[in-house]
């Protein structure tokens, strides 16, 4: 059915565009974080509207396709996956905006020691990679790439788990940097959520391509 194929194709393009948008938001926030660039952070906050608009459009398009075409099998799984991935991406967008807002509100750049000891920069980089990997996996329909995302999440969990202890020690040594430390903790939590969202996206991609439900199961089903 040519009509349905056209619609699905255009939906895929829209989803990929939203992916790129959210990816760039996350990246820009990271740049702003590293270089303490408040202007860049403000750009991110402004662009959040586009992310929200994109989410609404994709939702509406999915609804229309369901109503008009009653898709089945892989088309049905594709639409269900896109719906969920859509809201996952939007949440990642929100997180990027949140990080950018912090940077705008922060008074001074972060100390190098703090950044190094918490390993927040590698964590950030890894989370951005996870998002890019899911995008590639979706576009190329590559389930192996999608599965590789789960392993990357381990690293994020690791950093997150150890962050509590690390920051406790750091605050004891440098009590004047408590505010910054708390802020870093919050950001680490946010990035851990980015990792979780990316993992959910990867699970949806595997569901769409292989009809396997990996949610609430062990990591390598």
């Amino acid at each position, binding site marked *: 059915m*040519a*009509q349905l194929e056209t619609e699905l194709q255009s939906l895929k393009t829209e989803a990929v565009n939203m992916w790129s948008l959210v990816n760039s938001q996350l990246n820009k926030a990271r740049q702003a974080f590293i270089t303490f660039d408040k202007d860049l952070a403000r750009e991110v906050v402004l662009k959040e509207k586009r992310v929200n608009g994109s989410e609404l459009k994709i939702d509406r398009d999915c609804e229309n396709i369901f109503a008009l075409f009653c898709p089945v099998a892989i088309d049905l799984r594709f639409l269900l996956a896109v719906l969920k991935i859509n809201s996952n991406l939007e949440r990642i967008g929100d997180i990027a905006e949140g990080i950018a807002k912090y940077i705008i509100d922060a008074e001074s750049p972060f100390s190098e020691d703090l950044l190094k000891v918490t390993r927040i920069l590698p964590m950030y980089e890894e989370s951005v990679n996870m998002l890019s990997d899911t995008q590639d996996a979706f576009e190329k329909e590559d389930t192996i790439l999608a599965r590789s995302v789960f392993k990357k999440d381990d690293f994020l969990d690791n950093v997150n788990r150890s962050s509590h202890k690390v920051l406790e020690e750091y605050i004891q040594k440098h009590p004047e940097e408590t505010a910054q430390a708390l802020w870093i903790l919050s950001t680490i939590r946010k990035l851990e959520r980015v990792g979780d969202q990316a993992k959910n996206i990867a699970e949806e991609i595997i569901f769409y391509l292989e009809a396997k439900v990996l949610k609430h199961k062990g990591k390598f089903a």
Partner: protein
Amino acid sequence: MESTIIKSRNFNASFGTNHVVKNVNIDIPRNHIIAVMGPSGCGKTTYLRCINRMHELIPGATSNGEMKLNDEDVYQMHPIFVRLKIGMVFQRPNPFPNLSIYDNVIAGYKLNGVKLPKAERDEIVERSLTKVALWKEVKDSLNKKGSFLSGGQQQRLCIARTVAMEPEVILFDEPTSALDPISTSTVEELFHELKANYTLIIVTHNMQQAARVSDKTAFFFLGELVEYDETKTMFTNPKDQRTQNYITGRFS
């Protein structure tokens, strides 16, 4: 700028005392695909057959109200002229069984006594068969009888026969209900291509088909036009409760 090609105002139709189509007001825009749907006996087929004046051929059938084609009242025109401008494709494919495929396509001219030079006839046949995606399949067997084709091909032949007359509007009365799913989807793809040159009005009892194929949908119920809207809106958020009940299958 869309212009309205068919306009109905206060249109009614009856079979004797049985009032089947009640007070229909509808504007059908040019070069659109309009689906007309509704449960059995809701008057949709009767209304369709009123558009090209086939309804009055049944003994005891009457109608009143305004039905305009390009602002000319169809009931003031001679029925022959109406049917030359508004073609019809029926539920069961009905190619003329004693004519070859070639003759079937050109039947509207030939059987009407219109004499055309061979080159023009050939051109019309090729053009019409190409429009219905049948040319490649039958171009080497144009002299075979029409009844040797499969159901889906026969239906496309009937559409070619209608298209050869270059009408402005083509009416379809449940055109795929007698076809298998693959033929159905071939014919549905045809609708999209025909839209460029003709206006299509399709009566169907298959809701999914109405959803897939049309730009606007009209929902008839118990003889009344209950709702007429963009198909997307009709199937995601219909305004009338009766439409919602029908679409969700709460009653047939």
